[in-house]
């Protein structure tokens, strides 16, 4: 979903990414038969060749669209990453030059750190969402729906609009946050135009915007835990806290795993808030760029397309490796009931 990136924008597709790896069910191929004869109206019983035709026809529109707008572009981008671009179009083979230039880019260490830091901070949304989901699970009646609605409003709101509101809240001179801080005697900084704070300020918004989404996934996971586990634990004299750590957390681990995979995937692609909350002429921008923002800058502002594509390829490889590592590690801590 796309959830939705935005949260939802980024999330919905990364959600499927995580699920995709084990989705390929075993399916038998149709045996080879005679050529399909469309002229005859065949009663479909074992009409495999006929089934083929329908299969291809039904897949065709999507397959052509994906091939033209996604698969071929992916191939092109990889090729571009090995080329340098002239001022008037035309690419020349450049070998690994773009990759070398990227690795020695003085902006890289800071951008890589910002991206990792943002993703790590974003992971803090997971314990928060688990706590809220677990508490919500104990409430009955109409208030459940009300809470769920309120927590979810940030998820569905347009990131461009949300960023505008938060920029206003973070405003150094007139912002509500600094006013509230001044009540307790703290003189707040200009949150989003100070390089020391901007990444944290963006991460707080990222967490705020995704808690409701995670909560829904955890709530669904909690529903799947049989009640009698808790009843048995209670008979054994286990208190609520003990039950949470010995029953809820282990049985929720598949959901936790899923959410942490998509959180890392969307965190490492962070772009929206840098553009929306900081903007191009912000003094904090130099200290707050992310890898995805560097990509955008190189390709669409600086006309360094080869370099930009090298960044995209590196980002992809890192994402795939990290996801693979997470799938490896899951055997150690994820319990499938």
């Amino acid at each position, binding site marked *: 979903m796309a959830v939705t990136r935005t949260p939802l924008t980024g999330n*919905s597709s990364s959600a*499927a990414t995580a699920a995709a790896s084990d*989705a390929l069910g075993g399916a038998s191929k149709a045996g080879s038969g005679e050529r399909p004869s469309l002229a005859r109206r065949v009663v479909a019983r074992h009409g495999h060749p006929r089934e083929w035709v*329908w*299969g291809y026809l039904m897949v065709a529109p999507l397959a052509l669209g994906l091939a033209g707008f996604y698969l071929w572009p992916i191939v092109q981008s990889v090729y571009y990453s090995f080329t340098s671009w002239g001022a008037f179009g035309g690419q020349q083979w450049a070998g690994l030059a773009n990759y070398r230039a990227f690795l020695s880019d003085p902006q890289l260490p800071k951008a890589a750190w910002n991206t990792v830091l943002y993703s790590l901070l974003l992971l803090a949304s997971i314990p928060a969402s688990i706590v809220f989901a677990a*508490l919500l699970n*104990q409430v009955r009646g109409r208030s459940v729906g009300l809470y769920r609605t309120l927590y979810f409003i940030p998820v569905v709101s347009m990131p461009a609009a949300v960023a505008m509101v938060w920029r206003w809240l973070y405003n150094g001179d007139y912002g509500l946050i600094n006013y509230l801080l001044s009540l307790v005697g703290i003189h707040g900084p200009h949150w989003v135009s100070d390089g020391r704070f901007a990444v944290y300020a963006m991460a707080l918004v990222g967490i705020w915007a995704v808690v409701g989404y995670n909560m829904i996934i955890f709530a669904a996971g909690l529903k799947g835990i049989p009640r009698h586990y808790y009843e048995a634990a209670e008979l054994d004299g286990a208190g609520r806290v003990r039950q949470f750590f010995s029953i809820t957390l282990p049985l929720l681990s598949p959901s936790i795993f899923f959410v942490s995979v998509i959180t890392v995937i969307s965190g490492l692609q962070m772009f929206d808030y840098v553009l929306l909350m900081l903007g191009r002429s912000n003094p904090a921008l130099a200290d707050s760029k992310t890898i995805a923002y560097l990509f*955008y800058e190189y390709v669409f502002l600086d006309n360094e397309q080869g370099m930009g594509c090298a960044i995209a390829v590196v980002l992809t490889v890192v994402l795939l490796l990290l996801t693979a590592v997470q799938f490896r590690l899951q055997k150690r801590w994820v319990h499938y009931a």
Partner: protein
Amino acid sequence: MRSQRLWPVHVVLAVGAAAMVAPFLWQLLTSLQTLGEATHVPPTFLPGWRWSNYGEVFTSMPFLRQFLNTVVITVVRVAAQLLFCSMAAYAFARLRFPGRDVLFLLLLSVLMVPSQVYLLPQYQILMHLGLLNTLTGIVLPGLFSAFGTFMLRQFFLSLPVDVEEAARLDGAGPVRIFWSVMLPLAKPGLISLGVLTVLWSWNDLLWPLVVTSDAGQMPLSVGLATLQGEHVTDYPVLMAGSLLASLPMIAMFLVSQRRITEGIAFTGSK
């Protein structure tokens, strides 16, 4: 768990809910103030109810035009995705044909790749077609969705086979079965995908940002983003505009809350 006293639970949940909603309340309050009130220190909590800020949204940016652009883009994408994805998803889930699994693997590979990888070539395609700065161009790549196909395929796989078998024994062909038997059964899945696509399309930023430079062709997300870049500091009007831009999605969520949460929980469980 036991029904012990619930008030501490409610307290924590209410504090969390307040944190979720407070920014929107502040946005609403600011949107009804004069610039003087908004930039007053200490802040003004009760506004002067300046509703004219909402009128100004329509004069200070092409809000109505961009709103309609967003609606058109979203409607076309949802319709196309529902059609293309459901057809392909059904074929992937239930029909047998050579090369099916390879095709599906290719589809999954699209899902695993971040959007930065195909962004530039997509931009070039539009440039060659002369579709930069057009609604057609914004809509085009989003007509096809690997995610939507994947999601619906999983949904079709979760449906029982016997209804289909019965229809087949009655002599119905694949198209008939797909259209009259499977699609009605898959309605919850289709609605979930539709709602998620509406959300994604409405809020989508990066793609329309790179392919539009003409304010009249922008969707709202890009319109608001460029407005911030121009150092417009009339905060009350900005707050009014951003509230209006989010409102349709909040309204849709309130109406279709169950579908959205089910859709998310479904993608989470697969």
